[in-house]
């Protein structure tokens, strides 16, 4: 499932959302996935436990987090949620804080995780202006248009 199709099918985009801390920010994404039947209630707790154990291992770039747990930690099917925050939160990683874009990933196996999900996320941010475009987006249509353009650019490259 592509990033775009997943976000549309699961209705899992929240823009300019509010979160008081990083835990609340992660929960916004996992709640969207739980509501869509992509993960069960264990997933959020698993991500918090993983973070306590390993640190915030899923901060991909300044401003951008991709919270996720392991397939066996409550993943029911592959899916993404995309959350942007009105005010950024801090995860405790000086290289990437503060974070205001979260793409929560759920993958049923390592293969889907490695190949399917991440390439599309990387493509979306290949154009660095897309960080700010995404932060500014207020409608789902704007987000989908950004993803469409990024995929088209990736295919043309």
């Amino acid at each position, binding site marked *: 499932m592509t990033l775009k199709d997943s976000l549309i099918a699961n209705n899992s985009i929240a823009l300019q959302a509010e979160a008081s801390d990083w835990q609340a920010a992660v929960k916004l994404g996992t709640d969207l996935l739980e509501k869509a039947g992509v993960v069960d209630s264990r997933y959020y707790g698993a991500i918090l436990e993983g973070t306590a154990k*390993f*640190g915030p*291992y*899923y*901060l*991909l*770039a300044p401003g*951008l987090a*991709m919270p*996720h747990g392991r397939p066996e930690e409550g993943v029911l099917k592959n899916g993404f949620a995309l959350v942007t925050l009105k005010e950024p939160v801090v995860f405790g990683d000086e*290289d990437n804080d503060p974070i205001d874009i979260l793409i929560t990933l759920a993958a049923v196996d*390592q293969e889907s*995780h*490695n*190949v399917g999900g*991440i*390439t599309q*996320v*990387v*493509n979306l*941010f290949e154009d660095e202006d897309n960080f700010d475009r995404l932060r500014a987006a207020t409608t789902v249509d704007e987000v989908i248009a950004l993803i469409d353009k990024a995929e088209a650019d990736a295919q043309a490259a």
Partner: protein
Amino acid sequence: MQTAQVTIVNDNGLHTRPGQKFVKACKQFECEITVQKGEKTVSGKSLMKLMGAGICKDDTIQIHANGVDEAEAITYLTRFVAELEG
């Protein structure tokens, strides 16, 4: 510039948890560090770019280092990848 060729031994390759450790290791060095898999070359200091390269177990990669501490970087990172777990 110095280059080393290494084979990925850990189960998850250079993805999230181990990938992040590798990026942190690269950031200790001042020199420019890139990782090459096949025709694709990405910065070793960006987890996002590194994950975009899709480096998995048993892949052979080249690590390139260019700058003042390139020799130390290559020695350290070659060993780091060989001993990576997770």
